[in-house]
């Protein structure tokens, strides 16, 4: 029998004939941590008395979750991480450098790589055909030291995509509807592998959004093949040499298959307090929103900001609704300035944050008060995530977010486009 994408990559990196269910030791091409998992990663590395990194040039510490530092404690954590980088020679991306997963996509991930990060949304790089998965600090500390880790080769669920997204519908709606259908544990320990003729209509920015949220269905990875779309993106990033075609075999063994017709999707929102608690945006009309947040590793890319700017051009935010935008990287910010999108958003009433995670996880730049409701383009709406455990987080696409800015209540973007 042929191999899935997960089996192919893990075979290559382990030197074994890796099949679903096997446990293998695989070489790791890139390992990283960020500023809320990094300090413990460093401490575990030090607890192991390891003297040096296996691959300093493939080891990165990112400052994005609480950067610039909002308080003394996190400033001390940042200092501790910078000192480790100086001592070991690992790479760092410091304050203003952007969200780790966006930078991995723009500059580091290649098709066929194995990537391990101390952040659950490491799965984002699956959009480029990398076997990329999140782990905790101990696991990543050991990868820092040894350059390898163990994996159980996952069973794979094939997601076959056809058609194309209609106006006002985005990749976020695709992945929210998928998670709503299979549940927050619908793919636990498994790979979600995307295929089908509709993939040619999903840009890398779309694929990054979808792969990013694979973990919200419990998946170990969300994998896309490396195809012409991937090659075009890597060329655009001046990394054409990093491209290699990668596809699952036609006779690969999948545990199950789910078919998705992009034409049939509509704007979708995840309601508090679980990502699989989804509903069509139109059914939530009348839900008042205190804060809209556009950004994060899920939806902080140029295409997301462009969509918001298109909807908000010449419009103003509703007086009741605060509006926060955080571009995911300096490249996104600069491109959005050049294209005039930032001007449109500021004129509409947006507060622009530096490239980073911003309000996503309740540490700074948009913490919610008790009783408040936020419409966020992020990936998680767990109770307490953005501040008060008595706040309410709704997740939607940048189009739904922009429409909601205008009306001050959850709005299907097709109503204002």
């Amino acid at each position, binding site marked *: 029998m042929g191999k899935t994408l997960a089996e192919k990559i893990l075979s290559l990196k382990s030197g074994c004939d890796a099949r679903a269910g096997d446990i293998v030791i695989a070489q790791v091409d890139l390992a990283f941590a960020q500023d809320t998992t990094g300090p413990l990663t460093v401490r575990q590395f030090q607890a192991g008395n390891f003297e040096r990194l296996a691959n300093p040039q493939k080891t990165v510490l990112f400052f994005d979750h609480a950067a610039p530092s909002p308080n003394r404690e996190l400033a001390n954590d940042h200092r501790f991480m910078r000192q480790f980088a100086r001592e070991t020679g690992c790479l760092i991306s410091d304050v203003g450098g952007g969200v780790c997963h966006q930078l991995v996509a723009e500059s580091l991930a290649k098709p066929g790589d194995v990537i391990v990060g101390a952040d659950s949304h490491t799965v984002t790089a699956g959009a480029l055909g990398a076997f990329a998965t999140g782990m905790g600090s101990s696991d990543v500390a*050991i990868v820092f030291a*040894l350059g390898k880790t163990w994996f159980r080769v996952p069973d794979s669920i094939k997601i076959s995509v056809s058609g194309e997204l209609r106006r006002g519908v985005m990749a976020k709606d695709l992945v929210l509807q998928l998670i709503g259908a299979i549940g927050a*544990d619908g793919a636990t320990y498994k790979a979600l592998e995307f295929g089908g003729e509709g993939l040619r209509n999903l840009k890398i920015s779309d694929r990054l959004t979808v792969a990013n949220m694979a973990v919200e269905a419990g998946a170990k990875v969300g994998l896309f093949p490396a195809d012409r779309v991937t090659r075009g993106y890597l060329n655009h990033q001046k990394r054409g040499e990093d491209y290699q075609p990668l596809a699952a075999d036609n006779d690969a063994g999948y545990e199950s298959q789910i078919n998705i017709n992009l034409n049939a999707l509509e704007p979708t929102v995840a309601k508090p307090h679980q990502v699989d608690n989804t509903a069509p945006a139109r059914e939530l009309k009348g839900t008042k929103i205190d804060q809209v947040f556009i950004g994060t590793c899920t939806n902080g890319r140029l295409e997301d900001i462009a969509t918001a700017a298109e909807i908000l051009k010449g419009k103003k935010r509703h007086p009741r609704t605060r509006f926060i935008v955080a571009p995911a990287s300096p490249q996104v910010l600069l491109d959005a300035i050049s294209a005039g999108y930032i001007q449109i958003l500021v004129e509409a009433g947006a507060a622009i944050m530096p490239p980073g995670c911003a309000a996503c996880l*309740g540490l700074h730049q948009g913490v919610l008060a008790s009783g408040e409701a936020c419409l966020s383009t992020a990936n998680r709406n767990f*109770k307490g995530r953005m501040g008060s455990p008595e706040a309410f987080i709704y997740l939607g696409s940048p189009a739904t977010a922009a429409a909601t800015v205008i009306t001050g209540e959850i709005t299907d973007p097709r109503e204002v486009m």
Partner: protein
Amino acid sequence: MLKGRAFKFGDSISTDHIIPGRYAYLRSNLPELAKHVMEDADPDFAAKVNKGDFIVGGSNFGLGSSREHAPLVIKMAGVSAILAKSVARIFFRNAINLGLPVLICDTDGIADGDELEVDLAKGTVYDKTKGEKLTFSRLPKVMLDILAKGGLVPYIQKYGDFKL
């Protein structure tokens, strides 16, 4: 043999229930961080739990963030094992990597406050309060070995590499 009282929680207890992201500023001050263990699921948990007690969840326990501080604060609270119907994969690895046993079994029959006895070697849970015995799934060998060494860092210190 592990003995203690069950603290029963429902399905989908996330890492934000266990230790919310808003306390990230305490992650290098573990004694302070640990005071907030399970706060958004049960604000009184830290005051009530005793050494040896068990956390008993439903399905998809520990979903969400990769923060290893989630199993770490549970371990610091003295919890001797987590029992659940299913566990999110990053949390699962993180708990084992810290030497905290995670047992997959049908927890529906266990009630809050039940007295439990867990035999890790035999793979059994005895609910003394109910008089019922459960069995839990065996872990892969690599995870059993990591658990036996008290966690991943001591395991690698002992062997220098992964042993399959």
